[in-house]
């Protein structure tokens, strides 16, 4: 019977062409858009965790209250011994001390007078003592001129600032900032390389320096404004992160001491939980809207098919086939068409994903004014979730369309069938 029905579908071009085309194209678009959104979400998580949030972050309670302002004057000081304890307590995590700070970059002329100035965002990471940090920040790859810092006093500067301030490699610059106690602080550095992270908000003007240099500059010996923690396997797990943060805070955080440490999971920082919630809601509603629109189109197609096959259904009912059987056979046909159409759509979508997943899509024009951390090149990311979320609605929409259109079968009057056949 199945074979008979399948042959029936594919020997009649009118029955398969339009539904297959609709489902195929729909699933293809769905696979691409969902995998692109997934890629965007991953880029967002990856960039934020690398440059800002970590998978978890330890800061002082006072700092946590003003997290987005990054008030390094509320940094954790003399934290080295505590950090060793935390490392032993949570062996599944890698730790990275960082200091983010704002500074004025001053370029002196030959006489030592100011030749040019610009505002920069400073990142201090443990360049010489923590190779994972260099890897995590993609520093080697980000260097487009010059080399990595090899000794204290050497820094990297974002290429935009490097060009704007008309600098040459090995030029001396002075960073003017404020110490953790609020005094003005100046320190000379040598620019040994220019970097481009591919994140517009960073590439506008960032200085990357070694942690110990900046600890000295900011009078922050043995301290860091943020201590980031990453899962050693590199994958962010929101549930585990939340549970580690809760355990850490119970053990080490004191509500009455604003300078006691507090751990925040990535979801508790920079509205990440809210933003990622929006991402998954968007993906969910895209699926729902897709099923609905495709269902309406296929319903219409089913109705037209029903009109074309009006006589056929009449004969089938007249020779004794039950209405339910005709209806179920119609649903079966729709299921087969949905299945085949979804497979074709999936295959086409995966080909597009393969191309964009390998070469990426440049979205710089859209991220230029954004302060959020997205990569300039977005790569699609195909997961089982994306495949299921595209494939299943593809099949469901044909069933939905045929199911609605087929209701007309139950409205046929057996007594009228022969009369209808005569006309």
């Amino acid at each position, binding site marked *: 019977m199945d074979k008979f029905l399948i042959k029936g579908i594919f020997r009649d071009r009118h029955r398969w062409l339009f539904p297959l085309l609709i489902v195929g194209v729909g699933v293809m678009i769905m696979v691409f858009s969902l995998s692109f959104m997934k890629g965007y979400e991953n880029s967002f998580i990856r960039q934020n965790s690398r440059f800002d949030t970590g998978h978890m972050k330890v800061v002082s309670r006072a700092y946590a209250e003003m997290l987005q302002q990054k008030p390094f004057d*509320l940094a954790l000081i003399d934290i080295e011994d505590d950090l060793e304890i935390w490392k032993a307590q949570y062996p599944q995590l890698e730790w990275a001390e960082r200091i983010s700070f704002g500074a004025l970059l001053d370029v002196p002329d030959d006489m*030592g007078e100011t030749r040019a100035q610009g505002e920069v965002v400073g990142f201090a990471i443990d360049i010489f003592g923590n190779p994972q940090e260099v890897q995590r920040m993609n520093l080697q790859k980000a260097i487009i001129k010059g080399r990595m810092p090899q000794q204290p006093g050497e820094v990297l500067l974002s290429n935009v600032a490097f060009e704007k301030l008309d600098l040459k490699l090995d030029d001396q610059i002075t960073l003017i900032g*404020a*110490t953790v*106690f*609020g005094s003005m602080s*100046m320190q000379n550095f040598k620019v040994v390389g220019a970097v481009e992270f591919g994140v517009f908000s960073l590439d506008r003007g960032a200085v990357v320096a070694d942690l110990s240099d900046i600890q000295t500059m900011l009078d922050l010996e043995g301290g860091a404004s943020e201590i980031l923690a990453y899962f050693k396997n590199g994958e962010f797990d929101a549930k585990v992160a939340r549970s580690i943060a809760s355990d850490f805070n119970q053990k080490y955080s004191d509500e009455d001491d604003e300078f006691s440490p507090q751990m925040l999971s990535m979801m508790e920082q920079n509205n990440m939980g809210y933003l990622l919630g929006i991402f998954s809601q968007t993906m969910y509603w895209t699926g729902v809207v897709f099923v609905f629109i495709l269902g309406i189109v296929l319903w219409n197609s089913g109705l037209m098919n029903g009109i074309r096959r009006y006589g056929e259904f009449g004969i089938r009912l007249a020779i004794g086939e039950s209405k339910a059987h005709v209806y179920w056979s119609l649903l079966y046909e729709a299921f087969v068409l949905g299945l085949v159409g979804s497979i074709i759509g999936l295959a086409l979508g995966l080909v597009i994903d393969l191309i964009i997943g390998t070469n990426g899509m440049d979205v710089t024009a859209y991220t230029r004014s954004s302060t959020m951390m997205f990569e300039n090149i977005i790569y699609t990311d195909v997961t089982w979730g994306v495949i299921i979320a595209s494939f299943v609605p593809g099949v469901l929409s044909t069933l939905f369309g045929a199911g609605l259109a087929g209701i007309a079968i139950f409205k046929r009057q057996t007594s009228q069938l022969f009369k209808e056949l005569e006309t």
Partner: protein
Amino acid sequence: MKKALFTLALILCALGLSAQKPKADDIIKAIDRNMISNTVKSTTRMVVHSKRSSRTVESINYSKGNNSFYSEYISPPREKGTKMLKLGSDLWIYDPGSDRTVQISGNMLKQSVMGSDLSYEDFMEESTLEKDYNAAITGEITYDKRDCWILTLTAKHGKVAYYTRKAYVDKQRYVPLYEEWYAKSGKLLKTVKLSNVENVSGRWYPRYMLFKDKLKDGKGTEYFVDKIEFDLKIPDHIFSKAMLKK
């Protein structure tokens, strides 16, 4: 002799002013006479109470009128050798660690001096109260056990850091004992409490001030004037950029 006559004139003027309600303009002239001198050399201590800790910063300061100001920090060790020079509307900072002299301008003027509740802008007032503000007596109050005029000062031009100032001025000594500094929007930015008023070389001068930046956490900045000399001879080279790198 000249100094004695000047002091006498000042006291007579003060007595005359206290006998009847003086004009607001006369009060600010008297304040200017007390607070601003041709030349001043002082040694000061600034105790900065931040959220985290308290720090003491000591400096030796020289000034000529309100136009030229030179300051060298002598402690703590991290700040030692840092110098600040103001000439007219220009301000430079010399940092011995980097051996750089940087001109402070624009938004940087709003930054805190050594983490205190004072900003560089606070050092930038070039003129006298009389030239910068219109004054009005808006009441009387007993503050710190002293009878005071409440004076409201409104800026005459846009070159001042604070558009409005409210001051409690000692009726006898013509020294402000408490001030509130406001932005043009009416927002209270800073308060200053002045005490330990002493007669130094014929003028009344507060030896202790407590500055509080109302936009900052912390307990404020105490400012102690440990030594002060007025109208002494200060060589011109002190107020030159060459002095910064010496």
